[in-house]
């Protein structure tokens, strides 16, 4: 009985709807709405993931080609750097003398004494600012700007190229020409030393030929680690 009722209900509904579906207006609306929903459905579930995958893969190809090119360039640069390094291999000890990795205060003192002995003057005073011999240093860092340090700037990454100053003041006593030679030789040593200031005065009023030169100077070191 129940199924008969249902059957009749649906027949009635069908009889109501069938004429409606035959009108052009309803057919057009139904066609448009169903088309839009279908396109939206497949666009969401099929087209979007496919297009995204295609684009991502193309981008990957582009980026990896770029990385490959840059790595090729870097390999060539490394080969060139190796050849350049071989050319200056004999100069490496001189370069490390010029700009050591540690403050190397002792060797600097020996050099200063040698300068004094060579020029026949007396090294009467030597005063170093505090220096960290072991551990990390909180001394102000000097950005690389001098010509001598430029090769390191080229080879190493820019942020690692920092040179630390080692300040000291030195006093020499001797004749005028010898002291001039000392000052000249200080700036020509095989370790980079810059003179910030220098003053000259007579050692004694009676002995006017003996002079005292006091110089405030900086030596430098370049910790690689």
């Amino acid at each position, binding site marked *: 009985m129940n199924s008969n009722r249902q059957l009749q209900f649906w027949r009635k509904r069908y009889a109501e709807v069938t004429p409606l579906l035959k009108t052009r207006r*309803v057919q057009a*609306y*139904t066609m*448009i*709405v169903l088309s*839009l*929903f279908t*396109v*939206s459905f497949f*666009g*969401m579930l099929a*087209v*979007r993931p496919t*297009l*995204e995958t295609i*684009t*991502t893969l193309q*981008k*990957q190809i582009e*980026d*990896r080609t*770029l*990385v490959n090119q*840059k*790595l090729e*360039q*870097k390999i060539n*640069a*490394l080969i*060139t*750097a190796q050849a*350049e390094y071989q*050319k*200056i291999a004999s*100069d490496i000890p*001189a*370069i490390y003398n*010029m700009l050591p990795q540690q403050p190397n205060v002792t060797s600097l003192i020996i*050099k200063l004494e*040698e*300068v004094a002995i*060579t020029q026949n003057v007396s090294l009467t005073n030597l005063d170093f600012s505090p220096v960290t011999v072991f551990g990390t240093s909180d001394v102000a860092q000097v950005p690389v700007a001098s*010509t*001598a*340090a*430029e*090769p390191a700037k*080229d*080879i190493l*990454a820019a942020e690692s190229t920092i040179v630390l100053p080692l300040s000291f003041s030195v006093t020499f006593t001797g004749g005028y020409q010898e002291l001039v030679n000392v000052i000249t*030789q200080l700036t*020509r*040593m*095989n370790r980079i030393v810059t003179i910030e200031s220098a003053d000259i005065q007579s050692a004694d009023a009676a002995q006017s030929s003996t002079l005292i030169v006091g110089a405030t100077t900086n030596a430098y070191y370049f910790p690689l680690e």
Partner: protein
Amino acid sequence: MINQKDLLVISIFTFITVIFWVVSGVYHAIVTSQITEVQEELITPLNPKLNAEAIENIRSRSNL
């Protein structure tokens, strides 16, 4: 009861939303770089040229 016009409006907005979704997804895929941080570090350019003038200057210095 939803009439035909409402259905049409809903379907149009759904369609537009899906189109925007597809376009934004594709745009995001184009814009996002596929190069990792490690690769970025590896491809940092390196200038192998040494300063010949500085090397000559070092060579010319005294042995002190």
